[in-house]
């Protein structure tokens, strides 16, 4: 029998040698009992304190008191699994690469998917057990507290999919980052931002990002998880939307969350499979990156467009609805143009960021390009295949820029031609302006990355995007006299370009006299950036010629 025929298939996780290896090393009785003991002490303390205290001191009924500990215990489980588990996956991957034992895994005939699953569930196996050890307390609260299945069922499913997503984030971080400490920090940082920064962005029109977290389903289930006395307050302050509208189609929120997370999980798994097949390959193929870019924009538009006419998309509506119970604001509400234009600018900025991240991933190093050219020459191919890692990423960066501009335009048009802004007109050249902003940045950044490899072009581009804005903000807030120079300075940043574009296309946004300079700043710097992008592209073409010559050796 061929030995490779008897290796366990991916779905038999309990027979997976990598999973079993970590069960052995991470579940040794001494450490396991210590960690389980700590978890049970903390969890048990929370359970008994809230349950008994709620009943005896808080005057809750027994059923309500049983529910009192459920949410705190779920949060503890999330901290263990999402926080510790993700960190463990990231550092575990880096440790294997660092020690050199990762190569042994590459050498086994297990399929790449088996390897990914082995690490995914093996590295955080102790954290899974710690989380499961709290399950009896949670289930007690659920059963004795009469919490219905429709509340906790979807919550547990999304809890699982979120854990997988974050652990995969840790795996990708651990695969890419060479230093263990950095891998841990990067993965924790990504998970932290997924829970703090990303949901905030979703409040400003980029709704789909919140479905990368457990939050929508959690908040949805919350009224059924808390004691009856707290339900009233929650109902007034929470947005209960058990269904998600996607281009007019209604999806259950849990299902939509799982689908959104599944796309990212699939992307991460693809990254890891590519790295298992070839340790030097790009994290994503060029077509996959283009597809991912399109998918994210489809989600952004699909979620945002149906929420425009209802007003749910606008951040001030949410804010006012939340404080309405305190009678601070009158119930009449209407979005402002400034709010809408800010959302349009943010949409452009996020598009630009995504474009930069994906371009960085798919751009070949000089070594990679020369190797690809030599391989093509050896195989007697006229050129490096378009989708190969070694091929230039320029066409894909440009395609993403065009796609992004189209999506940005659709969002802007839907927002500003909605019934909220009956007087508002949109200049006909708006899509061209959006295209210019994104193409200039994409082509310039791509040429910089591909022509001058290494981390310095990346760091340089990031600094050129961030520093002028920071200095401009300090100058502008310091004194009115410095406002114009501050605008000129901030305008040089490609990251500020989406907002300057909005200020140029919709001058009503900039009523203050000092802001009248924005169009002039925008067009001047766009012209400069376009010249820089062309210059870098010409230089890149020269470098391509040099690389082709080097490939002849």
């Amino acid at each position: 029998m061929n030995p490779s025929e008897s290796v366990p298939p991916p779905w038999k996780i309990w027979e997976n040698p990598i999973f079993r290896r970590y069960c052995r090393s991470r579940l040794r009785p001494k450490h396991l009992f210590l960690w389980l003991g700590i978890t049970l002490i903390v969890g048990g303390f929370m359970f008994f304190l809230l349950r008994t205290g709620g009943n005896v001191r808080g005057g809750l009924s027994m059923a309500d008191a049983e529910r009192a500990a459920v949410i705190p215990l779920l949060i503890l489980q999330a901290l263990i699994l999402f926080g510790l588990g993700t960190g463990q996956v990231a550092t575990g991957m880096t440790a294997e690469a660092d020690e050199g034992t990762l190569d042994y895994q590459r050498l086994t005939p297990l399929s790449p998917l088996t390897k990914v699953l082995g690490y995914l569930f093996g590295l955080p196996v102790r954290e899974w057990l710690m989380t499961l050890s709290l399950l009896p307390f949670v289930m007690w609260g659920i059963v004795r507290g009469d919490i219905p299945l429709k509340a906790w069922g979807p919550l547990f499913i999304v809890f699982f999919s979120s854990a997988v997503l974050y652990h995969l984030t840790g795996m990708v971080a651990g695969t890419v980052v060479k230093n263990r400490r950095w891998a841990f920090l990067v993965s924790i940082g990504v998970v932290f931002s997924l829970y703090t920064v990303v949901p905030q962005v979703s409040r400003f029109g980029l709704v789909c990002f919140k479905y990368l977290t457990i939050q929508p389903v959690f908040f949805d289930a919350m009224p059924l998880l808390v004691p009856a006395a707290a339900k009233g307050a929650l109902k007034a302050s929470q947005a209960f939307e058990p269904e998600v509208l996607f281009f007019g189609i209604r999806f259950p929120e849990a299902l939509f969350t799982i689908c959104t997370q599944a796309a990212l999980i699939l992307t991460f798994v693809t990254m890891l499979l590519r790295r298992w097949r070839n340790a030097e390959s790009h994290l994503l193929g060029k077509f996959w990156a283009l597809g991912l870019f399109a998918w994210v924009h489809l989600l952004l538009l699909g979620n945002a467009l149906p929420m425009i006419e209802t007003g749910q998309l606008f951040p001030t509506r949410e804010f006012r609805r939340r404080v309405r119970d305190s009678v601070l604001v009158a119930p009449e509400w209407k979005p402002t143009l400034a709010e809408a234009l800010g959302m349009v600018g943010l949409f452009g900025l996020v598009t630009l960021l995504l474009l930069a991240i994906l371009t960085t991933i798919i751009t070949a190093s000089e070594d990679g390009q020369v190797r690809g050219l030599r391989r093509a020459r050896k195989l007697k191919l006229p050129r490096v295949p378009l989708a190969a890692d070694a091929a230039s990423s320029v066409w894909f960066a440009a395609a993403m820029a065009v796609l992004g501009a189209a999506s940005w335009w659709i969002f802007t048009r839907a927002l500003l031609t909605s019934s909220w802004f009956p007087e508002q007109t949109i200049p006909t050249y708006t899509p061209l302006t959006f295209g210019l902003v994104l193409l200039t940045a994409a082509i310039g950044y791509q040429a910089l990355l591909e022509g001058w490899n290494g981390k310095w072009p990346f760091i340089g581009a990031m600094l050129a995007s961030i520093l002028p804005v920071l200095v401009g903000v300090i100058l502008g807030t310091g004194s009115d006299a410095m406002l114009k120079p501050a605008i000129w300075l901030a305008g040089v940043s490609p990251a500020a370009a989406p907002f300057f574009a909005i200020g140029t296309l919709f001058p009503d946004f900039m009523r203050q006299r000092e802001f009248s300079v924005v169009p002039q700043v925008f067009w001047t710097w766009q012209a400069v950036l376009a010249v820089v992008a062309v210059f870098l592209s010409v230089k890149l073409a020269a470098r391509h010629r040099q690389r082709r010559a080097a490939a002849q050796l």
Partner: protein
Amino acid sequence: MSSSAAIEIRDLRVDYGNFVAVSDVTLDVPAGEIIGLVGPNGAGKTSTFRVLATLQEPTYGEVRLAGIDIFERPQEARSILGYMPDLAPVPSDLKAWEFLDQYAAAHGVGDASRRRARIEECLAEVSLEEKREAFCRTLSRGQTQRLVLAKTLLHSPKVMILDEPASGMDPLSRRSLRLALRRLADQGAAIFVSSHILSELAEMCSSLCVMNRGRLLASGSVEEVRRILGRAERTLVISVLERANEAAAWLQAQAGVSRVEALASRITLQYEGSHDGQAALLAGLVAGGFRVTAFEEKKSTFEDILIDVAEGNVNESKPSA
């Protein structure tokens, strides 16, 4: 490609930027042979091994292991391949048997009892039975090497790639290693091994490949390699009872003889000529009345060859065998 070769390499090239680590190497390693790969540091040995082990993608080239294209069917290739890297690492948090069991399962060695039996066999093969329950982190360098060798043997690979397998091993372990490799080769495995302990390679290998600056300079038996690398010149050591200086002067006048040195009754010289010519020298000495007590050809060692390669004293333009 030849069908009998267990390792077939064609036009293999590996680049790191502008540095050519392996340059268009073509080589066959037959089944049942132990081939040594020698070359100075930076010669391209490890890059070649990493490509063969499916750990690195080359710039271009074809590699087949037992007829399997390693780039098209890497998983299949891995099931017949055993690779032991230089300074082989082990996970610190596993016991020796747990480490072996993981890879036995990953290679589909069989169920738990079959794996257990195979682990015992491999531990015995490398004389490490007493360390079965020891944590890997407690093993010495040599024991670690032996444990990784045991891991490499687990699935009885048809092709073994061993990068400096004996580093850190004591003489007894080295002997065990040699015997184990010989047994495997006798069972039909092709073994490609690199070592800086060249005398060890000489004892172990049936033939030799010499690499320098990414190029395969020569391959074949030691004699063939010496010939290819221009080491046809050999050292002759002659002992005479008396008149050593006179004999030295006579030898110096002969064709193909150079660098003659006489020290007491012992004469050392370099001779570049056929074996007939060498016999004629001896006959000439005897005919000249010199009483010859010893006439010995001193072969150049692997070390000599490697030093010549490293110092660039060989003709690198010669095609490899």
